[in-house]
């Protein structure tokens, strides 16, 4: 008994890194366990140009773009140039190591998704210095179903977020060059990653503005950060693109490649008759976008219809808390500024939120650019970061926090994309949606 008490009090168990690592391991195991679902029926060569109908290629959602592109890249052809290549190189690496099958396609993306949880926990710890709050933040994110689904597919988002969070962690620790390198890798993974860079630089500019009395001295202190982080990130991205362009003979210079990406992404506009889930529907619990089936297999056994494999794009309880977190961050910032302090944590959340979510409002409403609910994946970490902080303190709010966490975890398992038969039977027994 005494020894058990000692273990409980030991530094080992107080080590947030250990807890985060355990959480990451659990999520990683869960992810690995579902990788083979769906498994392709068609051969890789049949699934490069014209894909056979009926999901025979085993692709989930936009994997139908990226995996064929990677297969072309493996043949030495430049493909899918509208997106930066790093995430695709990770998919390629998986294929080279584990073969051209779902394990190969998804393993490194899955790993990126799991590592993001660890990084978010560390970021939370940087701000709150609380093991409990940091771990709860990581839990919220780890059990965010949509994030889990998206980071289990061979898509670009999970590596982009992982590098972005790594960049943010270095940024908070004022390790500018390292932050620039990580953010450059994020930008080399997905075109939306520059928003993270802008958010972080804005955050730092606000901090400097608070420290300095006039604009000139504020800018003077901020410029080295811009140079060390922004320019290094840009350099990493350009070098990466140059390597790709040179190897595949895609573009004469990486700048021309950038031009193509910008052109392509600004041409993705919708018209009046198109059905678009506008950004507010991503976070509004009362007026949500409908559940989007990324990949669903339906079966009927003994008159019971259910979906043993169902990857959905959908809101989670954490997403419903978005505006609460934002309102809290705004109010708390106001109070902190009134006291003469600098609201580091709150402004970090607000800057990230503004440039990774609010930015899509003008894009969608003014520029009519296509937007998709899965873009919210880049914002989910800061909601997970803010929510525990709001509800820490008195017992009632903590009870609400734990209730929300339970709801988040329950939601996760209820809509877990690949369910074992015993779990399906149980859900059917209790008349839960399957």
């Amino acid at each position, binding site marked *: 008994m005494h020894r058990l008490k000692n273990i409980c009090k030991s530094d080992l168990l107080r080590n947030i890194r250990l807890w985060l690592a355990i959480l990451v391991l659990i999520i990683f195991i869960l992810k690995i366990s579902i990788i083979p679902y769906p498994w392709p029926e068609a051969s890789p060569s049949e699934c490069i140009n014209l894909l056979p109908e009926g999901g025979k290629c085993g692709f989930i959602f936009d994997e139908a773009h990226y995996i064929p592109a990677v297969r072309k890249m493996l043949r030495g052809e430049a493909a899918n140039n509208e997106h930066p290549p790093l995430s695709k190189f990770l998919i390629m690496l998986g294929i080279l190591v584990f073969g051209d099958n779902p394990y190969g396609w998804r393993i490194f993306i899955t790993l990126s998704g799991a590592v993001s949880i660890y990084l978010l926990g560390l970021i939370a710890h940087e701000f709150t210095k609380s093991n409990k709050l940091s771990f709860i933040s990581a839990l919220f994110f780890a059990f965010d179903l949509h994030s889990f689904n998206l980071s289990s597919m061979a898509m670009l988002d999970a590596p982009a977020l992982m590098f972005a969070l790594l960049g943010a962690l270095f940024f908070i620790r004022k390790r500018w060059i390292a932050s620039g390198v990580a953010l450059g890798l994020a930008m080399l993974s997905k075109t939306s990653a520059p928003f993270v860079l802008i958010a972080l630089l804005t955050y730092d500019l606000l901090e400097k503005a608070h420290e300095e009395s006039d604009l000139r001295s504020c800018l003077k202190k901020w*410029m080295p950060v811009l140079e060390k982080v922004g320019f290094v990130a840009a350099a990493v991205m350009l070098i990466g693109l140059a390597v790709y362009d040179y190897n595949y003979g895609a573009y*004469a210079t990486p*700048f*021309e490649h950038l*031009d193509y990406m910008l052109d392509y992404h600004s041409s993705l506009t919708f018209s009046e008759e198109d059905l678009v889930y506008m950004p507010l529907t991503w976070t509004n619990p009362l007026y949500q976008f409908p559940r989007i089936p990324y990949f669903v297999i339906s079966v009927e056994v003994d008159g019971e219809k259910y979906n043993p494999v169902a990857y959905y794009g959908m809101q989670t309880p954490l997403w419903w808390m978005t505006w609460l977190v934002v309102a809290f961050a705004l109010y708390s910032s106001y109070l902190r500024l009134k006291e003469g302090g600098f609201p580091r944590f709150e402004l970090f959340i607000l800057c990230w939120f503004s440039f990774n979510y609010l930015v899509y409002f003008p894009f969608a409403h003014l520029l009519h650019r296509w937007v998709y609910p899965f873009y919210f994946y880049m914002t989910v970490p800061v909601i997970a970061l803010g929510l525990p902080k709001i509800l820490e303190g008195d017992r009632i709010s903590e009870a609400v926090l734990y209730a929300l966490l339970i709801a988040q975890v329950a939601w996760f398992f209820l809509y877990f994309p690949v369910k074992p038969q015993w779990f399906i039977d149980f859900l059917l027994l209790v008349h839960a949606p399957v």
Partner: protein
Amino acid sequence: MKLDRKIIYSAAFISFLFSYLIHHPLLRKHVYSDIVSFWFRPFITLHEPPYIQASFEYPPLAGFITYVSALMKTLTSYYTVFSLFLFVFYIILIEVVIRISSNRQTPRELILIFLALSPSIILYTVYNFDIIFASLLILSLYLFERKRHFLSAILFSVAAMVKLVNLILLPFILMYVREWRSRALYAAVSLGLFGAVNLALWAINPKFIDQTYLYHFQWGLENAWFIALFPNPDSWNTAKLFSAFLLCYGLLKVYLCDFMDLYQRTFMALSVFLLTNYVFTPQMVLWILPLLAILGALPYSYFALEFANAGIILTWFESPNPTRFGSIPQYFAILRGIVLFLMIIEIYQNSKEVVKDASLEKYL
């Protein structure tokens, strides 16, 4: 021994004459100039006032000078009257630079080199409005230094009516005005006069802003070094974004620098503009030559800059497609960009070492 100003004037006069002659339209193989090309525009032959009845892509004073010159009936007389305008401003420039150099005790030989013997002066003085702009700007700075702020602001405004680029210099000049009230007054006068003239023209012709200013956004890359990064003309919209970013960054760096005096800062700001803008026509080098004379520096890079800058126009009409990457003028433009960058670094380092007492305090 101080160089006699008569020598400078004589050299300047000969340079100008040379410039006048090599561009003269009656010369069988004259060197191209924008001035002569204006003559063949319909509004000149029809005697229509620019901005009101016809479009002209230069600011109002430039159009006015062109219009007045075009009142002459023949191309030769038009060219000569235009050249006379340029000559007057050129002489004013020489005189003002001599005075500033005397105050700063910088060698007069440099005025001779930069403002009389430079190939750019010979090739591009009787060419476009750049010498007028340079003259008005330097005069404005000179008056500012002499604490005649009101006159300086008026001339600043007039300079902007020749070249819009002048407006980017306003924040840099305002840095040297101590009180907020004086700052506001300087800004109000310099922007007010410019704004009033432009507003009046806009009221008369609602297309004026489009035709005169926004027109330039349609231009592609012209002699910008970063054509090497954007060789395909289809990518030039992104090149312009790149240019805008570099410009903002460069100007911010100049703004935040502590140890520069007014002329150094003006030189740096204009050089940054030239280096980062997507259009860097060779005559624009005239903007920085007087400032180099004032700064009293003869950077090594100057010689290469002049070589490349002269090379652009001298090979322009020999190249079938001179604006495309891979043409000889564009190689000269890239070389010029590299050299100008080195010059900026050189001047920056020099200003750090030499101008120890030239902090903002001197002006305040």
